[in-house]
């Protein structure tokens, strides 16, 4: 129940396309859902995060869509660029004195010119 399932495992998109990465969770106590971007040999960098009181959040070219009833959330990258090529992790955290982030398995995104 603590798992966060992420798909796809890898994704190749042409420059300018809109890659979509999906995550699903079971634990209804999760109430904070960040996305992290990781380049090879680097630490995860916080990209954007959402709480379940909104269905969508947009920051620049990155948008999170959140479906509370389905317990799913997704990351959309508008006008994707080769520099967006990285591994993306979704994560979740609950609010009940529980501090750990539970990460998804990651999506390796490649944007081809």
């Amino acid at each position, binding site marked *: 129940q603590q798992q966060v399932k992420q798909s796809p495992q890898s994704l190749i998109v042409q420059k300018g396309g809109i890659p979509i990465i999906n995550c699903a969770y079971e634990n209804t106590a999760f109430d*904070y859902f*960040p996305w*992290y971007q990781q380049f090879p*040999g*680097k*630490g*995860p*960098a*916080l990209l954007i*995060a959402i709480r379940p009181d909104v269905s969508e959040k947009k920051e620049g070219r990155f948008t999170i869509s959140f479906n509370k009833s389905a317990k799913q959330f997704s990351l959309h990258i508008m006008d994707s660029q080769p520099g967006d090529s990285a591994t993306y*992790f979704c*994560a979740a955290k609950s*609010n009940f004195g*529980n*501090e*750990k*982030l*539970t*990460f*998804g*398995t*990651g999506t390796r995104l490649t944007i081809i010119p």
Partner: protein
Amino acid sequence: EPEVTQTPSHQVTQMGQEVILRCVPISNHLYFYWYRQILGQKVEFLVSFYNNEISEKSEIFDDQFSVERPDGSNFTLKIRSTKLEDSAMYFCASSVQTTTSEQYFGPGTRLTVT
């Protein structure tokens, strides 16, 4: 922009040896974390630390692991007797508080146990 720093960037050690991984969290942050990532796998939580004590730990964080905040700036992870399967990237993270704030990760220490 403030950032979490970690040293060393790469540590090679022999099986059975003790290692200490060091982190300097962002200065006004109060919560500190260690995560690890085995090559090609997801990031896994190890431990969280607040007010000079462990607030939560995972089943991975057994008796061979310990954490400490020896002074006002450093946060360390000690692995007492390393095993081959401890080879991984170890990430330190920090946050201002826990329930409402983001966790910021350091660049990681690659630990190789031979």
